[in-house]
C-alpha cells in the first residue's frame, strides 16, 4: 500500500466517527480504537527535504512504518499497537493525532523528542494556559508544582503543590490558593473545558502545558479548531520572539556595525533565596531544562552564564539575579528554548514568573487568531 486512502476531510470524518464509537479504521494499516482523540504539538526544526521527509526519517529511526496520504501535508505513522496522524501543515509546528492509548503515544513521542536535537514539545506558559480557558466552560484544573530541585527545603512556602479539581468553577480554588500566598506555587499545569458549537456539537477538552490535548465528544473538527488555535498562537509567539529578540551584529555597507535584537527579561515574584541551589538545579543538564553552564557568580546577587541548551545544541547568554533573569538569544537561535525555560520555571521555581519584554508571552497574538478563526 503506497498511500493511505485518506485526506484531510476524510481524517476529520473518521476521527469524528471514532469519537462516537463508529469507526474501526478500514483502509488504514492500523485499528482505530477508543473514543478519545489525543493530540500533541511538537516543534521540529527540520533538516531534510520537506517536513514529510522529516516525518519519514523520524519514523524510520524509531522503527515505525510511514505512509503518505492523499493530502500533501498529512502522513500516517504506525507500528503494531497503533498509529499516528501527523499534520505538517505548518512545517515547523506539527500536530500529531491518535486514538491509541495515551501511554503508548506519549512514550513514542517522548522517545522522538529526547532522541533528536531538532524536535521539542511546545511548552505552553501559564499565560497561554490561562487564556485557553476563555474558549469554553471550565470544568477542571490541575496544578502540579515541583520545586524540589530549585528551591531550598527550609524557608520555602509551597515547595511542592499538587491539586486537581473537577466541577463547576474549578478556578475558584486557584484564586483561593493565590490569595492565601501560594501564587508562586500554583502552576497552571492542566485545564479542562467543555467546548460547545451549535453546528458541530460538544467536546470535553483537556490541555496539558507540555503541548498535549485530549478531546472526547461529537466532533473532531471542534477539537482540532481548539488545538490549532492554541498552537497557531504559540507558533506566532515563538517566531515573534526570534524575530524581535534574536541578537545579531550586522556590518553596514556604509561602514561600522549595528546591533539588532535585545535581551528578554523574566521577572520573578518569588526571589531566589539560595542562588547555589537554583544554579545547581537549573544547570544540572537534566530534564526538563537540559541546560549546561559553568556559571560565574559575581556575587550572591548577580551571576553570569554562557548557557548551552542541550536539547538543540545552541548557546545563549544569561544573567541571573534574585529578582529575575536576563536572556540573550542569538539570531538564528530557537525561540522554543525561551518558552521551555519559562514554562518549566513556572512549574519548578515560581509559578508567577512572567516576561517583562514586549511581545514575549503576550496576549495580543491570541486575540489575532481568535478574531481570525
Amino acid at each position: 500500500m503506497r498511500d493511505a486512502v485518506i485526506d484531510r476531510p476524510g481524517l476529520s470524518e473518521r476521527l469524528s466517527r471514532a469519537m462516537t464509537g463508529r469507526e474501526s479504521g478500514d483502509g488504514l494499516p492500523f485499528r482505530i480504537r477508543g473514543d478519545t482523540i489525543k493530540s500533541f504539538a511538537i516543534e521540529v526544526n527540520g533538516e531534510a527535504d520537506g517536513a514529510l521527509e522529516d516525518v519519514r526519517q523520524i519514523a524510520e529511526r524509531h522503527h515505525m512504518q510511514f505512509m503518505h496520504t492523499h493530502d500533501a501535508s498529512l502522513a500516517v505513522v504506525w507500528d503494531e499497537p497503533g498509529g499516528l496522524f501527523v499534520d505538517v501543515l505548518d512545517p515547523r509546528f506539527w500536530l500529531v493525532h491518535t486514538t491509541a492509548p495515551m501511554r503508548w503515544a506519549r512514550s513514542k513521542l517522548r522517545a522522538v523528542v529526547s532522541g533528536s536535537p531538532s524536535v521539542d514539545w511546545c511548552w505552553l506558559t501559564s499565560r497561554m494556559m490561562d487564556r485557553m480557558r476563555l474558549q469554553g466552560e471550565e470544568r477542571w484544573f490541575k496544578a502540579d508544582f515541583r520545586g524540589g530541585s530549585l528551591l531550598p527545603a527550609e524557608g520555602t512556602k509551597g515547595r511542592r503543590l499538587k491539586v486537581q479539581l473537577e466541577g463547576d468553577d474549578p478556578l475558584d480554588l486557584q484564586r483561593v490558593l493565590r490569595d492565601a500566598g501560594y501564587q508562586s506555587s500554583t502552576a497552571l499545569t492542566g485545564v479542562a473545558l467543555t467546548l460547545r458549537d451549535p453546528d458541530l456539537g460538544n467536546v470535553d477538552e483537556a490541555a496539558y502545558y507540555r503541548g498535549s490535548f485530549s478531546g472526547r465528544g461529537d466532533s473532531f473538527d471542534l477539537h482540532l479548531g481548539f488545538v490549532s488555535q492554541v498552537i497557531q498562537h504559540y507558533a506566532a509567539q515563538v517566531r515573534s520572539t526570534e524575530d524581535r529578540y534574536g541578537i545579531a551584529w550586522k556590518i553596514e555597507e556604509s561602514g561600522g556595525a549595528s546591533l539588532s535584537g535585545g535581551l528578554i527579561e523574566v521577572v520573578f515574584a518569588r526571589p531566589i533565596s539560595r542562588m547555589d541551589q537554583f544554579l545547581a538545579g537549573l544547570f544540572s543538564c537534566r530534564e526538563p531544562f537540559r541546560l549546561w553552564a559553568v556559571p560565574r557568580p559575581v556575587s550572591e546577587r548577580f551571576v553570569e552564564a554562557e548557557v548551552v541548551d542541550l536539547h538543540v545544541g545552541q548557546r545563549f547568554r544569561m544573567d541571573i539575579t534574585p529578582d529575575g533573569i536576563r536572556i540573550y538569544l542569538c539570531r538564528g537561535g530557537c525561540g522554543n528554548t525561551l518558552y521551555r525555560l519559562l514554562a518549566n520555571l513556572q512549574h519548578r521555581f515560581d509559578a508567577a514568573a512572567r516576561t517583562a519584554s514586549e511581545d514575549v508571552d503576550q496576549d495580543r497574538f491570541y486575540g489575532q487568531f481568535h478574531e481570525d478563526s
Partner: protein
Amino acid sequence: MGRGRDQASRRIAPPDEHSSFPSSQVGWFVERRLIPINAWIALHRGEGGWPAKLAEQGFRIHRFEAPVQTDAGRVVVDGVSVADDLRAVIPTECKSGQSIENDQAERYAAMTAGNVARFVGLPFDSSSAELSPMYACLEESKTGVVVDLDRLKLPFAVLSVSDERVVLDARGNGLVRSFEQPVPHGSPPRYVVLDVDSADDEFVEYLLPELIASAGRGKEYVALEDLLKAVVAFWEIYGGPAKRRMIEKARNALARAFGRHFQNVFQFEATGTAGGDIIRVINSPAVFDPRGRTQSWQGLQRRASASVGRTPPRARPAPGQQVLFEDLGLGIDLGD
C-alpha cells in the same frame, strides 16, 4: 574600545560572609574594560533595569566601530549615537584607563557631522547637524580623563560608570544634559564580552560553551574562527592583524585547556591547510547512549569548571518528605 591590556581591571568581588558560595568562587566580573561600552548601549536601550537616560534625551544608537576620517586623521569611533529631532551626533570613545590618547582626542575634536556622514552615513542632512564628542569610562578613571581633556581644552562630555551609578557630566557638550542615576547591581547587559584586548582566559570562558553547543549538535569538526564569529561582537569588522591576534590567543588558551582538562574530548587538528585552527570533537555525549548522556554532559561541566578555575554549583540534596509518604504507601502521584 580602550585599547591596552588592563590586567588590574579584573577584580574579585569581596567575599560575603553570608554567601553560600565559597569565597574562592566569588568570581570574575565581565571585563571591566568593557563595562563603559555596554553601559553606553544600556543607556540607549533601557534594558535589564538600566535607565534609558540617553534615549530619553532623544538619542539612539547609529553605529558601532565606525571608521571616520577627519582633518586631523582617522579614528574608529566606538559608538555613534544620533538624535533625529535635534539633528545631533555624538561620537563616543569608551576608555578603560585613567588617561586619554592626545592624538585620538584631537581627531575627535576635529570631527564634523559631515565627516561622519561621509564615512558611515547619517539619517539626516549633515549640513545642519551638530556634533559633539563624548568619552565614556569607569568612575575611578573619570578624574584622569577630565584632567587630560581640560589640559587639551576639549569640552567633551564625560559619561562615567560604577557599580552603583552612572553619571553624565555634559561639561561643554551642548547636545546632552547632565544626569546622575543609580544602576542595578551587576554588569550592564552584556552585548560586548570579548575584543582584541581580552585576556586569554576570557576566550576560554566564552568559546568553550560555543564548542560544547557544537558538540551538542553532533558536529565532529569545528573551525576556531566559527567559534569566534559566534561570540565576538565585532569579529567581521576587525582587520586581518586583529583577527590573527585573536585567533592566536584563542588557540593558545583552548589548547592549554584541552591539554589539561579535555584529553580525549577535544583536540586541535595538527595537519591540513588550516592546521591548528580546526577542533576535532573526539567524544561528544550527543552520540552516546541516551541512558548515560546526562552524566556525560555533567562530566564535561566538571572539566570546563576546572579549566576556568571554578567548581560547579552543588546543592545539598533536599528531597523533602515525599519519600516518607511513599514509604507509607501515600506517595504523591508523580504523573509525567
